[in-house]
């Protein structure tokens, strides 16, 4: 089978493309983009072949001896197994489409040669990471991915925001990478080899002490959290939107963010054995998911909204993984990659259409202007919200079902996160495509074919992706990876209902409420709701509880809203805001408490000092002062005199050595 023999070409082709471009071919932008797209197409074919081979039960390993350190030989090794083949196919397919999109998106960019060189390196290193058969290779690719993200986010380095965002992303992930490195080295040092398969068998064989294993698992997860923007390291992700849109599309779907989830999935047996690690992962995931969803609800920038939604989705993946179901996490990873990249590509088209603006203020009513883009966006937003776009149930169900089996409180938190995802996806869609068009949106039109075709083809892949584990096809993913996706009918029902409620609220906020405002007595307030910030004002009004909010709320509340509905929304939004508030202030408050405690301790000890040791200290100080007045003469400030002292000391040491030798 040819897929087994050539699978190592998948990462190699983009890397070779990078090499050629770096060697000077990048001068011509057209040539660079053609070369990069060709390389990606090649690696797509190769990885699909590899996936077919892996599905037929074939495995392969390719290794290249690198160097030997301390008697241990390190090899660069790639292997083909179901998980790596699946994710590699995902990366290369999405990569190919995004590359095609980027070829026309960046067509006017003067430096696109450099862009495509870095982008190829990005894709190549991600494919290396996915196919890596040993942890050292994986770590190298991991670092390369980090560097590429730095380069790509900061691609427009002459602007203000990108360099800062790039540096932030780089250092945040770098910190996490350091922890990962420690974990990897500990693991390699303990097991004695870098190969993943022996490591996993050693781990499951119970050859490592459980404390050490837990420590290693947490370190590895810290690295994964850094790349996947989980809670302590989440700050870089929204800022990373400063890069070009294809970068965001790729980075948020299949590459950088997926790397963390992939790492946990790759070493899943290790996490299964290290007992509390999975619970921690699940809770971190659900926390991130809630925070991300809450932030996505109040964000006014389209791309940043999508970034927060990525955070929340990746959090849900970790919930799935942390609940003990590998398949649920991987399934969401695959599906999320498809619809999130579609969303980003469509967002890029929308930005282009409304004159490079990214905030919602400049959008609205684009449905009629850009029907195809709207279709693609709607399809993938529906998938994001959790509606059953195709015959299959949404991927989130599996996560929630897994959480149901694991822990009821985890389940309810995940349920809230899932509701949030329905809300924000519906909100984003309605703000962009429905309602009254803004002045800039008046002149919007469909993007050129070079952008539209990739968007539509990716959008059409979304239902296919959802079908990846459909019962109709006989659960192909389960058969590929082994094991089953958890399925609880009750949970599915609850999720579906919640998703529908969320979508209805989200869209209805835009549709129904302005229509209800046609009451003559409230004509004056109408524009507020019909205008761009219907949602924003609502959120502000409910959550702030301030003076202006109260005024508007009184009118709205008494005059028109169904009280129940209003209260539900209000409670929800208060929660949302509170979450956002916690996110912002929790760490500050903690730091404040620590500082206060420290200050009290310091003051107390200072008081003791003053009373107890003062006199003695003063006497000693006086002595030292007089002594040092005499010593001061030694400090001439001349280098050669200092050198003389240094060498005198050296001669003294020598004399000591001679004395010792004489005495012996």
């Amino acid at each position, binding site marked *: 089978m040819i897929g087994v023999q050539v699978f190592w070409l998948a990462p190699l082709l983009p890397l070779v493309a990078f090499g050629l471009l770096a060697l000077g071919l990048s001068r011509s932008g057209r040539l660079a983009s053609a070369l990069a797209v060709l390389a990606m197409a090649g690696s797509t074919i190769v990885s699909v072949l590899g996936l077919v081979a892996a599905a037929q039960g074939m495995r392969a390993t390719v290794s290249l001896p690198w*160097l*030997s*350190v301390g008697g241990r030989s390190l090899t660069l090794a790639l292997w083909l197994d179901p998980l790596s083949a699946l994710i590699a196919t995902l990366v290369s397919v999405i990569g190919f489409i995004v590359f095609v999109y980027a070829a026309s998106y960046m067509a006017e960019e003067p430096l696109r040669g450099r862009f495509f060189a870095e982008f190829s390196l990005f894709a190549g290193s991600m494919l290396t990471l996915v196919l890596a058969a040993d942890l050292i290779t994986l770590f190298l690719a991991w670092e390369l991915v980090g560097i590429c993200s730095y380069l790509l986010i900061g691609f427009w380095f002459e602007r203000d925001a990108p360099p800062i965002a790039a540096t932030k992303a780089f250092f945040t992930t770098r910190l996490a990478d350091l922890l990962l490195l420690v974990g990897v080295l500990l693991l390699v040092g303990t097991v004695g080899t870098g190969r993943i398969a022996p490591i996993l068998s050693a781990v499951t064989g119970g050859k490592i002490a459980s404390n050490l294993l837990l420590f290693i698992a947490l370190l590895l997860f810290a690295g994964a959290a850094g790349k996947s923007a989980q809670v302590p390291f989440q700050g870089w992700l929204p800022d990373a939107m400063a890069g070009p849109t294809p970068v965001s599309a790729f980075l948020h779907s299949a590459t950088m963010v997926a790397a963390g989830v992939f790492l946990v999935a790759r070493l899943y047996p290790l996490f299964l054995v290290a007992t509390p690690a999975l619970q921690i992962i699940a809770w971190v995931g659900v926390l991130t998911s809630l925070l991300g969803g809450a932030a996505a609800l109040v964000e006014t920038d389209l791309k940043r909204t999508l970034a927060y939604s990525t955070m929340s989705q990746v959090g849900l993946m970790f919930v799935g993984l942390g609940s003990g179901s590998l398949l649920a996490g991987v399934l969401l990873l695959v599906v999320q990659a498809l619809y999130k990249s579609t969303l980003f590509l469509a967002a890029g088209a929308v930005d282009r259409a409304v004159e490079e603006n990214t905030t919602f203020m400049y959008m609205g009513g684009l449905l009629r202007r850009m029907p195809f883009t709207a279709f693609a966006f709607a399809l993938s937003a529906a998938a994001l919200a959790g509606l059953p776009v195709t015959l299959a149930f949404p991927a989130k169900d599996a996560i929630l079902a897994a959480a149901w089996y694991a822990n009821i409180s985890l389940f309810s938190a995940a349920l809230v996160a899932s509701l949030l995802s329905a809300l924000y996806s519906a909100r984003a869609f309605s703000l962009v495509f429905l309602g009254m068009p803004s002045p800039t949106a008046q002149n919007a039109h469909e993007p050129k074919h070079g952008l539209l075709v990739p968007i539509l083809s990716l959008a059409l892949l979304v239902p296919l992706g959802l079908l990846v584990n459909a019962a109709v096809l006989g659960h192909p993913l389960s058969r590929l990876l082994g094991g089953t996706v958890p399925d609880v009918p009750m949970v599915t029902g609850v999720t579906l209902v919640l998703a529908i409620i969320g979508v209805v609220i989200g869209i209805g906020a835009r549709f129904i409420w302005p229509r209800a405002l046609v009451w003559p007595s409230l004509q004056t307030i109408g524009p507020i709701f019909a205008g761009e910030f219907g949602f924003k004002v609502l959120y502000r009004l409910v959550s702030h509880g301030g003076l202006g909010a109260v005024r508007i709320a009184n009118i709205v509340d008494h005059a028109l809203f169904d009280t129940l509905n209003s209260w539900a929304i209000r409670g929800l939004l208060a929660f949302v805001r509170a979450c956002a508030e916690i996110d912002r202030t929790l760490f500050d408050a903690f730091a404040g408490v620590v500082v206060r405690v420290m200050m009290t301790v310091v003051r107390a000890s200072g008081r003791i000092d003053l009373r107890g040791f003062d006199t003695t200290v003063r006497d000693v100080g006086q002595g030292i002062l007089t002594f040092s007045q005499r010593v001061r003469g030694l400090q001439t400030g001349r280098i*050669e*005199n200092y050198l*003389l002292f240094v*060498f*005198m000391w*050296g*001669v003294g040491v*020598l*004399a000591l*050595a*001679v004395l010792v*030798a*004489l005495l012996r």
Partner: protein
Amino acid sequence: MSSGLIEWLIFLSLAMIAIVTAAGMIITMSMYRAGLALMASFVALAGLFILLNADLLAAIQVMMNVGGMLVMVLFMVMMMMDPGGEMMWGMKRDMHMRGPGALSMHMPSGPPPPEEQEGQLDAGAMSDMDVQETEVGGHDMSDMEMGSMTPRQNYTMMVDMAMSTAQLPWAIVLGVVSALLLVILLILTPWPLAGIAPTQDASRVVGELLLSRYMIAFEGAALLILAGIAGAVLLAKRERSRVQTPPETKQRGEQP
């Protein structure tokens, strides 16, 4: 003559060259000559390495140090105004100073003589001294009137030309003491001698060692070289903005 005797003779002559030229580096007047002396010392050391059966190291020693010293010499000639020929020598001779001409001068001891109220000779003569050239291109000191030099001027000139600092006696004492202590230590310590001679091909074994056991050190040295290059370039680079802007602004100010 036995081979041992020949070896002793070669050793003694090489050691003599190494020591004498190293000492010559410190006491010679011209820095170019100092650099050359150091180079000669290193080449003699390379000869000692060959005597010690370390041919590879001898070659490396010559390659690294001859190139390095030549660059050093270049810097000296460029920066320290050390022009060619016997200029310093001739200057010393013309000024009727004591000691052999080629040897360096040391800091004058004692406090400086009091400053004269009115200069007997124009102040420019001192600063122009080493710039004056004859039409042949050589440096000529004959037009300096040495007799008219005041004690104070003589003193400042001695200070300018001194190659060593005022702590020269201390330095000599410390050098001698440290060498003596080392010698005592070397004689007192019983070294575990192995009575065999090396047999393997050094270049192959060293190469294999460098790329296996000392891989990290090797890579670290590479990193260090990189850092050294970057640092040296950064340090030696002229800062354009600071150097070039003031004349421009001055010109702009003068033009209107």
